[in-house]
């Protein structure tokens, strides 16, 4: 079953009950998920939520304490050597050689993966990256955005089937971020599966599916509309003068679970629709405020999920 499944299967990553703890602290608990081939799967969650640990377990850099899983059909516990050949892992911190040039870094990767003509492959990658003329510059001298592009270029050089990107756009300017995502979509269209962790909500919306993880637990997953729907969050958008004092007045009222400023308006959300309506009713009389029912944004949902799981955590 395995070989056939690997070749023709539509599932790229499937893990069941994955757990990992460091020095007695649970970093990932009982995590299960499934990523289809050719998908861009977004991994969201606050700092220290276990995103990096999960990605590392998928590419064989960490051994799970419990659970099972397959990446590209290979067992993540016993077939790490095979996984490494077909998975590209881009680390959060730039981890190419700062004292090697762009060309030399790419050649090194090409040789490790046993590509037929490393020099040619590296040259082609330099052209793809738009770094022609700078190939002899040391990698350490590149700006943040270019380092990320080079790291991605090195990752996809051996043509992996699965790409794991750990916060690839942290600290990168918006233009470079946009180009980065355009590249990722192109790769996915060509059949590569991409698992990408991020903090940015706008990046989440560029993913086909997302998973939200906090305190090591996977709290929601699916397409964005589905995640929003499953949150059962009802949201009002309110605008008017002096929103800061309004926010202070709204906070703490039973039925209102979240108040968040959103440009020139506030998002007021609650899990219990009728309780929220009752709470909001009191403010409806205030003439200068205008209330409209809106659908919750992804950020509303995540902040709500996080506050809920924080409660569980304590």
């Amino acid at each position, binding site marked *: 079953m395995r070989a056939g499944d690997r070749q023709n299967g539509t599932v790229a990553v499937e893990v069941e009950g994955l757990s990992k703890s460091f020095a007695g602290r649970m970093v990932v608990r009982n995590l299960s998920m499934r990523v289809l081939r050719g998908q861009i799967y977004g991994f969201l969650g606050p700092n220290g939520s276990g995103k990096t640990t999960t990605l590392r377990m998928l590419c064989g850099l960490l051994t799970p304490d419990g659970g099972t899983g397959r990446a590209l059909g290979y067992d993540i516990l016993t077939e790490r050597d095979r996984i490494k*050949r077909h998975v590209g*892992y881009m*680390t959060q911190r730039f*981890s190419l050689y*700062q004292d090697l040039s762009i060309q030399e870094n790419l050649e090194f990767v090409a040789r490790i*993966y046993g590509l037929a003509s490393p020099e040619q492959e590296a040259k082609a990658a330099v052209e793809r990256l738009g770094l022609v003329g700078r190939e002899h510059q040391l990698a350490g001298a590149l700006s943040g955005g270019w380092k990320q592009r080079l790291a991605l270029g090195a990752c996809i050089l051996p043509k992996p089937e699965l790409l794991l990107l750990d916060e690839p756009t942290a600290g990168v300017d918006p233009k470079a971020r946009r180009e980065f995502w355009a590249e990722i979509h192109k790769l996915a269209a060509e059949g590569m599966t991409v698992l990408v962790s991020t903090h940015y909500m706008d990046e989440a919306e560029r993913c086909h599916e997302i998973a939200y993880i906090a305190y090591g637990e996977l709290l929601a997953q699916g397409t964005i509309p589905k995640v929003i729907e499953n949150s059962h969050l009802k949201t009002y958008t309110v605008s008017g003068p002096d929103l800061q004092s309004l926010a202070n007045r709204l906070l703490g009222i039973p039925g209102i679970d979240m108040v968040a400023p959103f440009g020139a308006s506030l998002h007021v959300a609650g899990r219990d629709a009728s309780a929220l309506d009752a709470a909001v009713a009191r403010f409806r009389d205030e003439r200068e405020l205008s209330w409209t029912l809106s659908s919750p944004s992804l950020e509303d949902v995540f902040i709500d999920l996080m506050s809920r799981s924080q409660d569980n955590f304590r």
Partner: protein
Amino acid sequence: MMLTRTRAMFIKEFVQLRRDRLTFATMIFIPVVQLLLFGYAINTTPRHLPTAVLVHEDSDLGRSILAALSNTSYFKVTRLARSEAEMDHWIRSGEVLFGVEIPAGFERSVRRGDRPALLVVADASDPVASGTALGALEGVVRTALTRDRGLPETAEQSAAFEIRQHRRYNPAAVTSLNIVPGLLGTILTMTMLIFTALSVTREVERGTMESLLAMPIEPIEIMLGKIAPYVAIGFIQAALIIALGIILFEVPVVGSLPLLAALSTLFIATNLSIGYTFSTVAQNQLQAIQMSFMFFLPNILLSGFMFPFAGMPRWAQWVGEMLPLTHYIRIVRGIMLKGATLYDVHGEALALLGLMLLAMTLAVRRFRRTLD
């Protein structure tokens, strides 16, 4: 200059120092252990030096000469040679420092008053080791002989036989002849250890290890790939030292230069492997340097480079045998000064090979393949 800021720095440094347990431990451990180790091990007037004996006749006089030799406490008969060739081999290989040959018909010649010669061959390549014993040789043997035979000590008796000393390899006791081969090994040890000791910890500290581990490369491939370039560098270094030794210090190369080159390469690879092993154990570059240093010191003091190996107590000799420099110094002195062949030094070569393989095995096993 502000005292509060200096104080802030002082407190921060102290906290960091306290957190680095290994550094803290080595600060206490190094001086105590090293002092005890070397204080007890080093002895510049060595006794019980290994001696080979070639006896052509089994006589009372011969036996009492051997007993007298042992009684001086400078000589210890460790080998009984069956031929001159065998005795030469042991001296060339460094197995023994002295060879005593009692010729055929020795006792009869003494009785006849022919003043026969008792041949004592000394390996003078290390003048410190052999000097004292040779100085003590004549007088002590003669008094012991006189006492044993119950003969009156007359002028005639004192000339009953002649001790013919043969200082081989470095008859004029030129220090540089002995020091240059030792320095060759010492310099190589120091530089090679540091080269590789930093190699893995550097990757960890710079964060490149995370990428490397996610790539399809085996620990043994990483190790060999990291060691190989430094073998070439070490080879150049060795060639330079040997060339300077020949040109400036007029150290001869009596034996085969290709053999010296081949075994030097083996020695270089052994040290690189040991340095690499430290690198897989150490958590940061500072620790790797500390380990190299802790390893380097006994290499200098217990290898026979600075102090005579034969003069050390047995336990210290065992420690010495575990160090590559000990074997390499025997090889280099053997080939350069004594014209030793591969047969003479094959034991030392095998020891180096064994140490290298041991280090490599440890390194590959210790290498952390995951970030767990």
